[in-house]
Protein backbone atom coordinates (compact mmCIF):
# COMPACT_ATOMS: atom_id res chain seq x y z
CA UNK A 1 0.00 0.00 0.00
CA UNK A 2 1.16 3.49 -0.57
CA UNK A 3 1.80 5.64 2.47
CA UNK A 4 -0.35 8.43 1.16
CA UNK A 5 -3.53 6.43 1.77
CA UNK A 6 -4.88 6.78 5.27
CA UNK A 7 -7.69 4.26 4.89
CA UNK A 8 -7.84 1.30 2.56
CA UNK A 9 -10.77 -1.06 2.27
CA UNK A 10 -10.22 -4.27 0.32
CA UNK A 11 -12.85 -6.83 -0.63
CA UNK A 12 -14.95 -6.01 2.43
CA UNK A 13 -17.87 -8.38 2.99
CA UNK A 14 -20.30 -8.26 5.84
CA UNK A 15 -23.55 -10.01 6.62
CA UNK A 16 -26.07 -9.62 9.45
CA UNK A 17 -26.99 -13.27 10.15
CA UNK A 18 -27.37 -14.55 6.59
CA UNK A 19 -28.44 -11.26 4.99
CA UNK A 20 -25.48 -9.72 3.12
CA UNK A 21 -25.09 -5.98 3.79
CA UNK A 22 -21.74 -5.27 2.18
CA UNK A 23 -20.30 -7.22 -0.74
CA UNK A 24 -16.81 -6.86 -2.12
CA UNK A 25 -16.25 -3.20 -1.22
CA UNK A 26 -12.95 -1.65 -2.34
CA UNK A 27 -12.26 1.94 -1.38
CA UNK A 28 -9.22 4.14 -0.95
CA UNK A 29 -9.07 7.31 1.10
CA UNK A 30 -5.93 9.37 0.40
CA UNK A 31 -4.59 11.64 3.14
CA UNK A 32 -5.96 15.15 3.31
CA UNK A 33 -8.98 14.42 1.12
CA UNK A 34 -12.65 14.86 1.85
CA UNK A 35 -14.57 11.91 0.49
CA UNK A 36 -18.29 11.23 0.39
CA UNK A 37 -20.03 7.88 0.47
CA UNK A 38 -23.50 8.30 -0.99
CA UNK A 39 -26.42 6.05 -1.50
CA UNK A 40 -29.99 5.42 -0.51
CA UNK A 41 -31.01 4.92 3.09
CA UNK A 42 -30.26 1.37 4.16
CA UNK A 43 -27.66 0.61 1.49
CA UNK A 44 -24.93 -0.15 4.03
CA UNK A 45 -23.22 3.25 4.37
CA UNK A 46 -23.42 3.43 8.15
CA UNK A 47 -22.39 -0.22 8.42
CA UNK A 48 -19.29 0.66 6.44
CA UNK A 49 -18.45 3.49 8.85
CA UNK A 50 -18.86 1.15 11.79
CA UNK A 51 -16.27 -1.14 10.21
CA UNK A 52 -13.77 1.68 9.95
CA UNK A 53 -14.42 2.56 13.60
CA UNK A 54 -13.95 -1.08 14.57
CA UNK A 55 -17.47 -1.56 15.97
CA UNK A 56 -18.15 -4.46 13.58
CA UNK A 57 -16.01 -7.30 12.29
CA UNK A 58 -16.06 -8.09 8.56
CA UNK A 59 -17.00 -11.58 7.40
CA UNK A 60 -14.32 -11.31 4.70
CA UNK A 61 -11.75 -8.74 3.61
CA UNK A 62 -10.32 -5.95 5.76
CA UNK A 63 -10.22 -2.28 6.61
CA UNK A 64 -6.76 -0.83 7.04
CA UNK A 65 -6.30 2.49 8.81
CA UNK A 66 -2.87 4.07 9.04
CA UNK A 67 -1.29 0.76 8.03
CA UNK A 68 -3.08 -1.35 10.62
CA UNK A 69 -5.87 -3.84 10.00
CA UNK A 70 -8.71 -2.73 12.23
CA UNK A 71 -10.39 -6.04 13.04
CA UNK A 72 -7.10 -7.65 14.07
CA UNK A 73 -6.41 -5.07 16.79
CA UNK A 74 -7.08 -6.02 20.41
CA UNK A 75 -9.20 -3.82 22.67
CA UNK A 76 -6.25 -1.68 23.71
CA UNK A 77 -4.96 -1.26 20.18
CA UNK A 78 -8.41 -0.38 18.96
CA UNK A 79 -8.83 2.24 21.67
CA UNK A 80 -5.44 3.69 20.79
CA UNK A 81 -6.55 3.86 17.15
CA UNK A 82 -9.88 5.46 18.05
CA UNK A 83 -8.13 8.28 19.88
CA UNK A 84 -6.89 9.34 16.45
CA UNK A 85 -10.40 9.23 15.00
CA UNK A 86 -13.25 11.64 15.41
CA UNK A 87 -16.82 10.81 14.65
CA UNK A 88 -19.89 12.95 14.25
CA UNK A 89 -23.07 10.99 14.82
CA UNK A 90 -26.29 11.51 12.98
CA UNK A 91 -28.01 13.46 15.75
CA UNK A 92 -24.89 14.69 17.48
CA UNK A 93 -25.07 12.23 20.38
CA UNK A 94 -24.03 14.91 22.88
CA UNK A 95 -23.95 13.72 26.48
CA UNK A 96 -27.22 15.12 27.77
CA UNK A 97 -26.11 15.22 31.40
CA UNK A 98 -23.15 17.53 30.72
CA UNK A 99 -22.92 21.16 29.63
CA UNK A 100 -21.60 22.13 26.19
CA UNK A 101 -18.24 22.97 27.79
CA UNK A 102 -17.97 19.58 29.52
CA UNK A 103 -18.98 17.77 26.34
CA UNK A 104 -16.10 19.31 24.40
CA UNK A 105 -13.70 18.88 27.32
CA UNK A 106 -14.69 15.23 27.85
CA UNK A 107 -12.00 13.60 25.71
CA UNK A 108 -9.31 16.02 26.87
CA UNK A 109 -10.05 15.04 30.47
CA UNK A 110 -10.18 11.33 29.65
CA UNK A 111 -7.10 11.04 27.48
CA UNK A 112 -4.74 13.82 28.47
CA UNK A 113 -3.25 15.27 31.64
CA UNK A 114 -3.61 18.85 30.50
CA UNK A 115 -4.04 21.39 33.29
CA UNK A 116 -7.44 23.00 33.68
CA UNK A 117 -6.39 26.40 32.23
CA UNK A 118 -5.22 24.80 28.99
CA UNK A 119 -8.38 22.70 28.69
CA UNK A 120 -10.40 25.87 29.23
CA UNK A 121 -8.57 27.66 26.42
CA UNK A 122 -8.73 24.67 24.06
CA UNK A 123 -12.45 24.17 24.62
CA UNK A 124 -13.18 27.82 23.91
CA UNK A 125 -11.02 27.69 20.77
CA UNK A 126 -12.85 24.62 19.49
CA UNK A 127 -16.20 26.22 20.20
CA UNK A 128 -15.05 29.46 18.59
CA UNK A 129 -14.13 27.52 15.43
CA UNK A 130 -17.76 26.41 15.09
CA UNK A 131 -19.04 29.87 16.04
CA UNK A 132 -20.57 28.87 19.39
CA UNK A 133 -18.04 30.10 21.94
CA UNK A 134 -20.63 31.83 24.11
CA UNK A 135 -22.86 28.77 24.41
CA UNK A 136 -20.34 26.97 26.62
CA UNK A 137 -22.48 27.14 29.75
CA UNK A 138 -25.68 25.87 28.10
CA UNK A 139 -26.98 22.31 28.33
CA UNK A 140 -27.46 20.28 25.12
CA UNK A 141 -31.25 20.41 25.55
CA UNK A 142 -31.11 24.21 25.23
CA UNK A 143 -29.52 24.09 21.76
CA UNK A 144 -31.25 23.97 18.40
CA UNK A 145 -30.61 20.98 16.13
CA UNK A 146 -28.09 22.85 14.01
CA UNK A 147 -26.24 24.20 17.02
CA UNK A 148 -26.12 20.75 18.64
CA UNK A 149 -24.58 19.39 15.45
CA UNK A 150 -21.92 22.10 15.53
CA UNK A 151 -21.12 21.45 19.19
CA UNK A 152 -20.82 17.75 18.37
CA UNK A 153 -18.44 18.73 15.59
CA UNK A 154 -16.33 20.74 18.03
CA UNK A 155 -16.30 17.74 20.36
CA UNK A 156 -15.32 15.36 17.55
CA UNK A 157 -12.26 17.45 16.65
CA UNK A 158 -11.31 18.03 20.30
CA UNK A 159 -8.14 15.97 20.08
CA UNK A 160 -7.25 16.99 16.49
CA UNK A 161 -7.96 13.58 14.91
CA UNK A 162 -6.23 12.37 11.76
CA UNK A 163 -9.43 10.77 10.51
CA UNK A 164 -12.87 12.35 10.75
CA UNK A 165 -16.04 10.41 10.08
CA UNK A 166 -19.41 12.02 9.57
CA UNK A 167 -22.60 9.99 9.70
CA UNK A 168 -25.32 11.93 7.90
CA UNK A 169 -24.08 15.36 9.04
CA UNK A 170 -26.77 17.12 7.02
CA UNK A 171 -29.82 15.16 8.13
CA UNK A 172 -32.64 17.35 9.41
CA UNK A 173 -30.93 20.74 9.13
CA UNK A 174 -32.38 23.98 7.79
CA UNK A 175 -30.73 25.50 4.68
CA UNK A 176 -28.56 27.93 6.65
CA UNK A 177 -27.29 25.34 9.13
CA UNK A 178 -26.74 23.03 6.18
CA UNK A 179 -24.35 25.47 4.51
CA UNK A 180 -22.66 26.27 7.83
CA UNK A 181 -22.05 22.61 8.68
CA UNK A 182 -20.91 21.79 5.13
CA UNK A 183 -18.50 24.69 5.15
CA UNK A 184 -17.18 23.72 8.59
CA UNK A 185 -16.53 20.14 7.50
CA UNK A 186 -14.42 21.38 4.62
CA UNK A 187 -12.57 24.03 6.61
CA UNK A 188 -11.85 21.79 9.59
CA UNK A 189 -10.54 19.08 7.30
CA UNK A 190 -8.10 21.47 5.68
CA UNK A 191 -7.13 23.21 8.92
CA UNK A 192 -6.42 19.93 10.72
CA UNK A 193 -4.75 18.30 7.75
CA UNK A 194 -7.09 15.41 8.41
CA UNK A 195 -8.83 12.97 6.14
CA UNK A 196 -12.62 13.02 6.23
CA UNK A 197 -15.29 10.54 5.27
CA UNK A 198 -18.80 11.88 4.90
CA UNK A 199 -21.66 9.41 4.72
CA UNK A 200 -24.68 11.18 3.34
CA UNK A 201 -27.60 11.18 0.97
CA UNK A 202 -27.63 14.93 0.62
CA UNK A 203 -26.32 15.22 -2.94
CA UNK A 204 -26.38 18.96 -3.54
CA UNK A 205 -24.67 20.00 -0.31
CA UNK A 206 -21.98 17.36 -0.28
CA UNK A 207 -21.13 17.72 -3.98
CA UNK A 208 -20.11 21.30 -3.21
CA UNK A 209 -17.48 20.37 -0.64
CA UNK A 210 -16.04 16.91 -1.36
CA UNK A 211 -13.08 15.81 -3.49
CA UNK A 212 -14.31 12.38 -4.45
CA UNK A 213 -17.54 10.40 -4.29
CA UNK A 214 -18.30 6.72 -3.87
CA UNK A 215 -21.80 5.67 -4.79
CA UNK A 216 -23.30 2.64 -3.06
CA UNK A 217 -26.44 0.66 -3.72
CA UNK A 218 -27.48 -2.61 -2.07
CA UNK A 219 -24.08 -3.15 -0.51
CA UNK A 220 -21.92 -2.70 -3.59
CA UNK A 221 -20.18 0.30 -5.14
CA UNK A 222 -22.04 1.26 -8.31
CA UNK A 223 -20.13 4.38 -9.27
CA UNK A 224 -17.22 6.53 -8.17
CA UNK A 225 -15.53 9.69 -9.31
CA UNK A 226 -15.09 13.38 -8.68
CA UNK A 227 -18.28 15.41 -8.19
CA UNK A 228 -18.11 16.61 -11.80
CA UNK A 229 -17.81 13.06 -13.11
CA UNK A 230 -20.74 11.98 -10.97
CA UNK A 231 -22.92 14.85 -12.16
CA UNK A 232 -22.12 13.97 -15.75
CA UNK A 233 -22.65 10.26 -15.20
CA UNK A 234 -25.00 8.62 -17.65
CA UNK A 235 -25.71 5.62 -15.49
CA UNK A 236 -29.44 5.39 -14.80
CA UNK A 237 -29.21 4.90 -11.07
CA UNK A 238 -26.73 7.69 -10.44
CA UNK A 239 -28.71 10.04 -12.65
CA UNK A 240 -31.92 9.30 -10.79
CA UNK A 241 -30.25 9.80 -7.44
CA UNK A 242 -28.36 12.99 -8.25
CA UNK A 243 -31.38 14.63 -9.80
CA UNK A 244 -33.84 13.22 -7.30
CA UNK A 245 -36.21 11.74 -9.87
CA UNK A 246 -39.19 9.82 -8.63
CA UNK A 247 -39.17 6.82 -10.94
CA UNK A 248 -36.27 5.04 -12.56
CA UNK A 249 -34.16 2.04 -11.68
CA UNK A 250 -35.31 2.61 -8.08
CA UNK A 251 -39.06 2.18 -8.42
CA UNK A 252 -41.62 4.37 -6.66
CA UNK A 253 -43.63 1.31 -5.65
CA UNK A 254 -42.28 -1.17 -3.16
CA UNK A 255 -42.14 -4.45 -5.05
CA UNK A 256 -45.13 -6.69 -4.33
CA UNK A 257 -47.95 -8.65 -5.85
CA UNK A 258 -50.30 -7.61 -8.59
CA UNK A 259 -52.25 -4.42 -7.79
CA UNK A 260 -55.50 -5.68 -9.27
CA UNK A 261 -55.28 -8.84 -7.23
CA UNK A 262 -54.69 -6.90 -4.00
CA UNK A 263 -57.89 -4.93 -4.65
CA UNK A 264 -59.79 -8.18 -5.30
CA UNK A 265 -60.68 -7.14 -8.86
CA UNK A 266 -61.56 -9.81 -11.35
CA UNK A 267 -59.56 -9.66 -14.51
Amino acid sequence: MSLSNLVEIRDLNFAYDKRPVLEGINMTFPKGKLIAIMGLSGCGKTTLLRHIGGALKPTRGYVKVDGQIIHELDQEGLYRMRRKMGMLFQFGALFTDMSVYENVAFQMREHTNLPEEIIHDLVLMKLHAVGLRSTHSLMPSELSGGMARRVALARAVALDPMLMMYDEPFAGLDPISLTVVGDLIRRLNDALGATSIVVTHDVQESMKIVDYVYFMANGVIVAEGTPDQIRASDRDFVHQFVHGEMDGPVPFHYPGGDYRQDLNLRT
Partner: protein
Amino acid sequence: MVAGLFVGMVLGLQGYETLQRYGSESALGVMVALGLVRELGPVVAALLFASRAGSAMTAEIGLMRATEQISAMEMMAVNPIARIVAPRFWAGVISMPLLAALFSAVGVFGGYFVGVIQIGVDDGSFWAQMQAAVDFREDILNGVIKSVVFGTVVTVIALFEGYDAPPTAEGVSGATTRTVVTSSLAILMLDFVLTAIMFRGN
Protein backbone atom coordinates in the same frame (compact mmCIF):
# COMPACT_ATOMS: atom_id res chain seq x y z
CA MET B 1 -39.03 8.55 54.61
CA VAL B 2 -42.77 9.12 54.38
CA ALA B 3 -43.29 5.49 53.45
CA GLY B 4 -41.21 4.40 56.44
CA LEU B 5 -43.25 6.61 58.75
CA PHE B 6 -46.54 5.15 57.57
CA VAL B 7 -45.34 1.57 57.62
CA GLY B 8 -44.19 2.10 61.19
CA MET B 9 -47.52 3.66 62.13
CA VAL B 10 -49.46 0.75 60.65
CA LEU B 11 -47.20 -1.67 62.49
CA GLY B 12 -47.93 0.22 65.70
CA LEU B 13 -51.70 0.01 65.17
CA GLN B 14 -51.87 -3.60 64.04
CA GLY B 15 -49.31 -4.73 66.58
CA TYR B 16 -51.25 -3.11 69.40
CA GLU B 17 -54.52 -4.73 68.26
CA THR B 18 -52.96 -8.18 68.32
CA LEU B 19 -50.71 -7.82 71.35
CA GLN B 20 -53.35 -6.33 73.65
CA ARG B 21 -55.38 -9.53 73.35
CA TYR B 22 -52.62 -11.31 75.20
CA GLY B 23 -52.04 -8.41 77.50
CA SER B 24 -48.53 -7.88 76.24
CA GLU B 25 -48.86 -4.48 74.64
CA SER B 26 -45.62 -3.42 76.29
CA ALA B 27 -43.84 -5.67 73.76
CA LEU B 28 -45.04 -3.36 71.00
CA GLY B 29 -41.65 -1.69 70.73
CA VAL B 30 -39.93 -5.04 70.19
CA MET B 31 -42.41 -6.05 67.52
CA VAL B 32 -42.16 -2.82 65.60
CA ALA B 33 -38.38 -2.72 65.74
CA LEU B 34 -37.79 -6.36 64.83
CA GLY B 35 -40.36 -6.27 62.05
CA LEU B 36 -38.72 -3.24 60.54
CA VAL B 37 -35.07 -4.11 60.99
CA ARG B 38 -35.35 -7.72 59.92
CA GLU B 39 -37.99 -7.60 57.20
CA LEU B 40 -39.91 -4.52 56.26
CA GLY B 41 -37.01 -2.09 56.30
CA PRO B 42 -34.84 -3.89 53.74
CA VAL B 43 -37.74 -5.30 51.68
CA VAL B 44 -39.98 -2.26 51.36
CA ALA B 45 -37.03 0.10 50.96
CA ALA B 46 -35.67 -2.18 48.19
CA LEU B 47 -39.05 -2.31 46.45
CA LEU B 48 -39.25 1.48 46.52
CA PHE B 49 -35.63 1.70 45.43
CA ALA B 50 -36.34 -0.60 42.46
CA SER B 51 -39.33 1.39 41.27
CA ARG B 52 -37.71 4.76 41.80
CA ALA B 53 -33.93 4.56 41.29
CA GLY B 54 -33.85 1.28 39.33
CA SER B 55 -36.34 2.40 36.72
CA ALA B 56 -34.55 5.75 36.42
CA MET B 57 -31.22 4.04 35.83
CA THR B 58 -32.68 1.75 33.18
CA ALA B 59 -34.41 4.59 31.37
CA GLU B 60 -31.33 6.81 31.50
CA ILE B 61 -28.92 4.20 30.13
CA GLY B 62 -31.48 2.97 27.59
CA LEU B 63 -31.92 6.50 26.28
CA MET B 64 -28.16 7.04 26.15
CA ARG B 65 -28.01 3.95 23.99
CA ALA B 66 -30.91 5.11 21.80
CA THR B 67 -29.35 8.53 21.19
CA GLU B 68 -25.98 6.95 20.31
CA GLN B 69 -24.27 8.47 23.37
CA ILE B 70 -22.85 5.06 24.26
CA SER B 71 -21.56 4.49 20.72
CA ALA B 72 -20.08 7.99 20.79
CA MET B 73 -18.27 7.19 24.01
CA GLU B 74 -16.91 3.97 22.54
CA MET B 75 -15.71 5.86 19.48
CA MET B 76 -13.91 8.27 21.80
CA ALA B 77 -11.97 5.30 23.18
CA VAL B 78 -13.69 5.55 26.55
CA ASN B 79 -15.05 2.32 27.94
CA PRO B 80 -18.76 2.91 28.67
CA ILE B 81 -18.84 0.11 31.24
CA ALA B 82 -16.23 1.89 33.32
CA ARG B 83 -17.59 5.37 32.73
CA ILE B 84 -21.36 4.83 32.88
CA VAL B 85 -22.18 1.47 34.43
CA ALA B 86 -19.61 1.09 37.23
CA PRO B 87 -20.30 4.36 39.10
CA ARG B 88 -24.05 3.67 39.08
CA PHE B 89 -23.45 0.16 40.36
CA TRP B 90 -21.49 1.37 43.37
CA ALA B 91 -23.96 4.17 44.00
CA GLY B 92 -26.78 1.65 44.15
CA VAL B 93 -24.95 -0.86 46.33
CA ILE B 94 -23.83 1.79 48.82
CA SER B 95 -27.03 3.80 49.05
CA MET B 96 -29.40 0.85 49.47
CA PRO B 97 -28.33 -0.11 53.07
CA LEU B 98 -28.39 3.56 54.06
CA LEU B 99 -31.92 3.92 52.72
CA ALA B 100 -33.03 0.75 54.48
CA ALA B 101 -31.51 2.00 57.76
CA LEU B 102 -33.25 5.35 57.38
CA PHE B 103 -36.49 3.57 56.56
CA SER B 104 -36.28 1.42 59.71
CA ALA B 105 -35.35 4.35 61.92
CA VAL B 106 -38.25 6.49 60.70
CA GLY B 107 -40.54 3.46 60.94
CA VAL B 108 -39.67 2.96 64.61
CA PHE B 109 -40.66 6.56 65.27
CA GLY B 110 -43.89 5.99 63.38
CA GLY B 111 -44.63 3.03 65.65
CA TYR B 112 -43.71 5.12 68.69
CA PHE B 113 -46.01 7.91 67.58
CA VAL B 114 -49.03 5.65 67.20
CA GLY B 115 -48.30 3.22 70.01
CA VAL B 116 -47.05 5.52 72.74
CA ILE B 117 -48.39 8.96 71.96
CA GLN B 118 -51.77 8.05 70.45
CA ILE B 119 -52.71 4.76 72.12
CA GLY B 120 -50.81 5.23 75.33
CA VAL B 121 -48.48 2.24 75.66
CA ASP B 122 -45.92 2.87 78.38
CA ASP B 123 -43.04 4.96 77.11
CA GLY B 124 -40.35 3.26 79.15
CA SER B 125 -41.29 -0.33 78.35
CA PHE B 126 -41.56 0.50 74.62
CA TRP B 127 -37.92 1.57 74.46
CA ALA B 128 -36.46 -0.66 77.18
CA GLN B 129 -37.87 -3.89 75.79
CA MET B 130 -36.77 -2.89 72.33
CA GLN B 131 -33.26 -2.25 73.56
CA ALA B 132 -33.13 -5.58 75.34
CA ALA B 133 -34.59 -7.67 72.51
CA VAL B 134 -32.93 -6.29 69.40
CA ASP B 135 -29.55 -7.92 69.00
CA PHE B 136 -26.87 -6.20 66.98
CA ARG B 137 -25.45 -9.25 65.22
CA GLU B 138 -28.61 -11.30 64.97
CA ASP B 139 -30.98 -8.56 63.80
CA ILE B 140 -29.29 -5.40 62.63
CA LEU B 141 -26.37 -7.01 60.83
CA ASN B 142 -28.65 -9.50 59.09
CA GLY B 143 -30.90 -6.64 58.01
CA VAL B 144 -27.90 -4.79 56.61
CA ILE B 145 -26.77 -7.92 54.74
CA LYS B 146 -30.24 -8.26 53.24
CA SER B 147 -30.27 -4.66 52.09
CA VAL B 148 -26.81 -4.99 50.53
CA VAL B 149 -27.93 -8.10 48.64
CA PHE B 150 -31.13 -6.40 47.48
CA GLY B 151 -29.22 -3.28 46.45
CA THR B 152 -26.77 -5.32 44.39
CA VAL B 153 -29.47 -7.37 42.70
CA VAL B 154 -31.71 -4.39 41.87
CA THR B 155 -28.82 -2.35 40.52
CA VAL B 156 -27.47 -5.20 38.39
CA ILE B 157 -30.91 -5.85 36.91
CA ALA B 158 -31.51 -2.14 36.24
CA LEU B 159 -28.14 -1.61 34.60
CA PHE B 160 -28.36 -4.76 32.50
CA GLU B 161 -31.86 -3.95 31.27
CA GLY B 162 -30.82 -0.40 30.38
CA TYR B 163 -27.67 -1.47 28.57
CA ASP B 164 -29.51 -4.25 26.76
CA ALA B 165 -32.58 -2.21 25.79
CA PRO B 166 -33.50 -1.99 22.10
CA PRO B 167 -32.71 1.60 21.04
CA THR B 168 -36.32 2.67 20.47
CA ALA B 169 -38.97 4.42 22.57
CA GLU B 170 -40.81 1.12 22.88
CA GLY B 171 -37.65 -0.76 23.80
CA VAL B 172 -36.72 1.64 26.59
CA SER B 173 -40.20 1.65 28.11
CA GLY B 174 -40.31 -2.15 27.97
CA ALA B 175 -36.91 -2.40 29.65
CA THR B 176 -38.02 -0.02 32.42
CA THR B 177 -41.08 -2.13 33.12
CA ARG B 178 -38.98 -5.29 33.17
CA THR B 179 -36.57 -3.72 35.66
CA VAL B 180 -39.35 -3.01 38.16
CA VAL B 181 -41.11 -6.35 37.73
CA THR B 182 -38.01 -8.55 37.69
CA SER B 183 -36.29 -6.82 40.58
CA SER B 184 -39.45 -6.77 42.73
CA LEU B 185 -39.88 -10.51 42.24
CA ALA B 186 -36.18 -11.08 42.88
CA ILE B 187 -36.38 -9.08 46.12
CA LEU B 188 -39.33 -11.07 47.46
CA MET B 189 -37.83 -14.39 46.47
CA LEU B 190 -34.38 -13.61 47.85
CA ASP B 191 -35.97 -12.31 51.03
CA PHE B 192 -37.50 -15.72 51.64
CA VAL B 193 -34.22 -17.49 50.93
CA LEU B 194 -32.19 -15.15 53.14
CA THR B 195 -34.71 -15.28 55.97
CA ALA B 196 -34.70 -19.08 55.84
CA ILE B 197 -30.90 -19.07 56.13
CA MET B 198 -30.61 -16.36 58.79
CA PHE B 199 -33.46 -16.90 61.22
CA ARG B 200 -34.26 -20.47 62.10
CA GLY B 201 -36.70 -19.80 64.87
CA ASN B 202 -34.22 -19.69 67.72
